[in-house]
């Protein structure tokens, strides 16, 4: 924990918002999956989402670039403001939203094409006219993968190890320099060494990118997140509805949580 983090102002203060998410309800069909979760993703920071299984942290993350639109019956009540525009407003094309807000998934999912083509995919998709080769190299360097693959750019992305594949997916996502990067448990399929590399990478990427990170591992949030949002699940009301319990600077959440539930979760009473 560096002192720089401690000196930062409290969350929800003057710092600039990349995404201001004010979810009042998210439904899958008739099932109320998430309620009352206002999450502010601050520019240039890593925001960690933690909480037990089924607490809706992934659902909220995937609502930030309309990935949930792929799921039948998904419905969101509330607003998700990105650069002052509600991405759920009528007339907003989810495809455009996803081009500005990139995503890295739980399972490494490179395309069945060469390493080079994987990274160039987004550039070609966005009709980039400049030097694609240079951008590919830059993205691979950014993802700390360049030295390992520079001699085999023509090899299939699927020939890499799991950790390398995940870094390739990060390179693919950052190649087009999206405004925000969403990461949905990016290390859950990786071994500890690969996990460490990806965590280091997130801290480096923070200089240029705003990152929202869902993690099942609260120590990971503690290691990399500036701001942490703790979600939990509401079983008292009969359903299994997730909601935001509290959100604040990572140090405050882990050392001085305001809510009893947060305290119990951090202590390891439930998971």
């Amino acid at each position: 924990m560096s002192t720089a983090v401690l000196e930062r102002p409290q969350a929800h203060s003057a710092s600039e918002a990349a995404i201001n998410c004010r979810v009042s309800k998210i439904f899958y069909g008739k099932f109320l999956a998430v309620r009352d979760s206002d999450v502010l993703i601050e520019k240039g920071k890593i925001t960690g989402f933690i909480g037990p299984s089924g607490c809706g942290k992934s659902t909220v993350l995937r609502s930030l670039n309309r990935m949930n639109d792929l799921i039948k019956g998904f419905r969101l009540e509330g607003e998700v403001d990105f650069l002052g525009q509600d991405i759920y407003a009528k007339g907003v094309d989810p495809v455009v939203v996803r081009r500005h807000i990139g995503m890295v998934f739980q399972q490494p999912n490179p395309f069945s094409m060469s390493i080079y083509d994987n990274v160039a995919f987004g550039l070609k998709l966005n009709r980039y006219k400049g030097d694609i080769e240079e951008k590919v190299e830059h993205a691979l360097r950014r993802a700390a993968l360049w030295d390992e693959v520079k001699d085999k750019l023509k090899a299939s992305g699927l020939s890499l190890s799991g950790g390398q594949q995940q870094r390739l997916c990060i390179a693919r996502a950052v190649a087009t320099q999206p405004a925000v990067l969403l990461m949905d448990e990016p290390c859950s399929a990786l071994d500890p060494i690969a996990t460490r590399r990806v965590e280091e990478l997130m801290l480096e990427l923070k200089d240029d990118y705003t990152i929202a990170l869902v993690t099942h591992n609260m120590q990971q949030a503690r290691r990399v997140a500036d701001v942490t949002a703790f979600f939990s699940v509401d079983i008292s009301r009969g359903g299994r509805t997730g909601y935001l319990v509290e959100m604040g600077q990572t140090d405050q959440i882990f050392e001085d949580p305001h809510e009893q539930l947060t305290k119990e979760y951090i202590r390891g009473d439930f998971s």
Partner: protein
Amino acid sequence: MAIQFALQDGKSLSQRPSIAAYVVDRAFFLAAGLGAFTIVALVAYILWEIGGQALPAVIKNGPQFLVNTHWNVQNQSFGILPQIWGTLYSSLLALLIGGFVGVTIAIILTQDFLPHQIAVVFRTLIEMLAAIPSVVFGLWGIFVVIPFIRPAADWLHDVAGFIPFFGTSLSGPGMAPAVIVLAIMILPTVAAISQDAISLVPYKVKEAAYGMGTTRWEAILKVIVPTASGGISSSLVLGFGRALGETMALAMLIGNANQISLSLFSPANTLASLLASNFPEAGQIERQALMYAALVLLAITLVVNVIGTLILAWTSRKIVKA
């Protein structure tokens, strides 16, 4: 028989399998092995038998048989180049049409374009096409397809007769009706295997594509179909294999004329159709020549099917590894 463990304190309910279980096990293994061996033996026997009967013709006609263009029973001079040409030409054209339509159908049925129930109905209907007897397709071709395409064929020949494909007028049976019916006949093969291949593409790959901000068609054409390309190509190869060997419908529709022509409207012939039409009245010498032709057809279809199966095996391994 298995060694016993000295654990007879009467507390455990565990027992070794009965003698009967071992016998059944063994019998099943032997039956399965015998069945597998029979299939191999059968293929070898067919090759042996056809090869043996074709041998006199192979010695007499030699490789010239493959490039001669006449099938003359009087002079006993035989050649199957027109039939090889007709077989490959009709099959390739059918593959072009049936392949394109089949893959398109596979995409539409697997990528949530239709409500689930309707997709299931469509899938069943297409699979039922495979159950229609070949002779019924042939009759349908004669009584429906030929009259149906005649106006268009006449018009094309009048307006664009200088293009070799439309160089002759449609006299009735010919390449065009044969190709149309053949395309429909290979449709179920192509559509079914392509559907399996496309369904095999993991959801996470689709998700990755949408996550990059692709539109639906970009996701399908740039990511999903390329990922399934191995399975799709093997569906095309297997469909091609089916087209090569199709007999009855073609014998009824292709016109059985031993000539080489690019024209879609002129009659032609295929190997399978030659065999079906000429066998009943063939004398000994012609019969041997027909056996030689059968051997050539067998070789062509065998090679094509082996290639298709290899592609399928190779790519499903690749996808599973992913």
